[in-house]
């Protein structure tokens, strides 16, 4: 699970994770690394990076809100992605 979709609240993360999971994505709600939490505590959806573009399309299509999207590089650093 190398991709992280940030969410503004646990409820939004639950909604996103459930919708993605139901649609067949390997999505799981997590607490993201502190380095990605620029405003303090947050929740996110973790998933395989290969599924990320399709997952983002799915969320947009279903009008489910989400925040920034990150992919972990081989160095372990998370890089923001614009999808």
């Amino acid at each position, binding site marked *: 699970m190398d991709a992280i979709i940030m969410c*503004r*609240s*646990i*409820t*939004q993360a*639950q*909604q996103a994770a459930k919708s993605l999971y139901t649609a067949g994505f390997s999505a799981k709600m997590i607490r993201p690394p502190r380095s990605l939490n620029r405003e303090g*505590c947050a929740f996110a959806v973790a998933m395989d990076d290969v599924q990320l573009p399709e997952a983002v399309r799915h969320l947009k299509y279903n009008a489910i809100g989400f925040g920034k999207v990150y992919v972990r590089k081989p160095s372990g650093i998370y890089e923001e992605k614009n999808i």
Partner: protein
Amino acid sequence: MIYLDSAATSFIKPLEVISAVENAMFNCASAGRGGYHAAASAAAVLYSCRETAAEMFGIDSPEKVIFTYNATHALNIAIKSLARRNAPAVISGYEHNAVLRPLNVLKKYGIQTKVAAAPLFDSDAMVRAFERQLASGAAFAVCTHVSNVFGYILPIARIDAICAAKRIPLIIDASQSAGCIPLDCSKFKAVEYVCMPGHKGLLGPQGTGMLLCCGSRMPSTIIEGGTGSMSEQSEMPQFLPDRLEAGTINVPGIAGLDAGMKFIKQRGIEEILKNERNCMDKFMDIISDVPNIKVFSNKDLLNQSGVLSFYVKDRDCEDAARDFADAGIAVRAGLHCAPLAHKTAGTLGMGTVRVSFGALSTAGETVLAAETIKKVLNE
């Protein structure tokens, strides 16, 4: 004891509700505060309940389902979010103190309350009263869906249409209707907030309630604190539900509320209403010939839920209720925290005895209770 006070709380709960509370107490930690299993279990309980409520009441996102301590808490948020200095609030003549008292506090900000008063069970007159009071504008309107004293079902769809035409937001107090009468918020045009307890018709535990945010306005906070989100910000988040849910949520209570709503869904709200009306019908048939009794009822029951009030001339309502309690029948007497409703119906001086039925009321116990009450009154 035969319990006929479901309008106060659903004292008799489905076993599923009790099991859900127990499970949550065994398995759930604090929701939204940790990533470990017990915290995730708690979060899952809350989300499941938001989804159940959103589906039951036609809310387009679980994020718009806010957990409160009770309906009063929800009404306070709704009223204080829509109040504007020097602009009046218009309310029906059947509102509870949960509406009247917050509005009384707001008087000092120049917020006056105008009452749309109309005779009991006269829906056309109620619509005309709202039209009159809203004619010169208002910051918002509040209308109870069902009178907690008389079971009168107010014409909220027609009142919503009046408010929509005037662009005035409407608050619905669903304290006596949620779980007892179908309520589809997606059909409303002006309703901004719907407020409800979790422990009455929805069969959940006490200490639970919900605020449904139907519109696009961002509500004001009445308490602030930790939400498990945006923690570096000193202000409350500008998104729902976190904005209105400061502090630890009552997870066992919400687990029970979710189970209560699922029980109702399985049984069917229409069936529950039919059962309540059937019980009320049987009750009225038996007590209506008690000498000097005045029963407040709409005979065809089309705009009355499973709540009815009565009084007996020259018999104090509290004394009567005490005599019923001694005979094993639990009812409520007095003003039922709704002096305005009594004033509107002309019963402020004497109060009433209120009998209210619920999802788990049965025809058999209703007949037994009515016969017992009749016997006590005839003694």
